[in-house]
């Protein structure tokens, strides 16, 4: 690794430690981007790129992003599940970067479910 060095990582660690000591609750929202072959082929990567950018811009360190596989609804991909702590998960269908930005700002940050894009409420039964 060239110019960006381990010293930079140490600085990041110290900075994050300072921030963590100011706040207690760590994870408030979990967002799952479905990354099966079907999801990737229909643009899940761009959706996830957008989500990571938005989190970085907003400094929303209490939002956790994860990926999962296909859940069998390939024709409705890209799918995104938003799970606010202590609330039922919301599954969004046919997501693109613009819809992802809207969901991030309105649902993840402000708590308003974006009904027009909702596929379902609740968790899938995973085998």
């Amino acid at each position, binding site marked *: 690794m060239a110019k960006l060095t381990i010293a930079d990582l140490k600085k990041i660690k110290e900075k994050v430690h300072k921030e963590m000591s100011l706040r207690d609750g760590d994870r408030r929202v979990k967002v799952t981007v479905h990354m*099966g072959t079907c999801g990737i082929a229909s643009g899940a*990567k761009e959706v996830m790129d957008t989500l*990571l950018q938005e989190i970085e811009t907003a400094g929303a360190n209490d939002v956790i992003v994860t990926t999962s596989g296909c859940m069998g609804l390939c024709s409705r991909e890209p799918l995104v599940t938003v799970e606010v702590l202590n609330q039922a998960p919301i599954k969004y269908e046919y997501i693109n970067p613009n819809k992802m930005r809207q969901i991030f700002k309105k649902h993840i940050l402000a708590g308003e479910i974006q009904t027009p894009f909702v596929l379902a409420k609740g968790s899938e039964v995973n085998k």
Partner: protein
Amino acid sequence: MLELSAHILDIAENSVRAGARLIEINIEEDTANDYLSIAIIDDGHGMKQEEINKVLDPFYTTKTVRRVGLGIPLLADAAQRSGGSLQLQSQEGKGTSIKATFGLNHLDRQPMGDITGTIIILIAGNLDVDFYCKYRHNIRRFELDTREIRKEIEDVPINHPEVLKYIRGVLEEGFSEIKPEA
């Protein structure tokens, strides 16, 4: 799947589903031999011989939610269209390695696409998996190992926005130095 980086993301997600703890992504470009290879090596639970035999069959999948499994057949097709091939080795309990080769300058070789973003997504989306990425262009080499990063940041999660930003910086700098062609 129009870009090689999308295939890499897809195959690496297979490794994640196979319970891998370490996934190695190895890309090599050799201009003199007009050769590009992409290898994804994991330490997941591997496959049985009968599963290996069916891996190129798009109507075979281990999933129960649908009846098709297109990830590996699509990669094999992308490799073959550019005069390359796909090799797969797997051992139950040990892991799986997939290597696809391509004609680097072949007209039908798919472009690499956003490899930086792909690696970031893999790291961000799979908190408990380590990634060892190697990219070689002729004699120029670049490596990124998340195990080394984890050692330095200790209890800070690797998917923290600040850490991801750092990793993005390292990747962009690395790729701008080795100047890949794909």
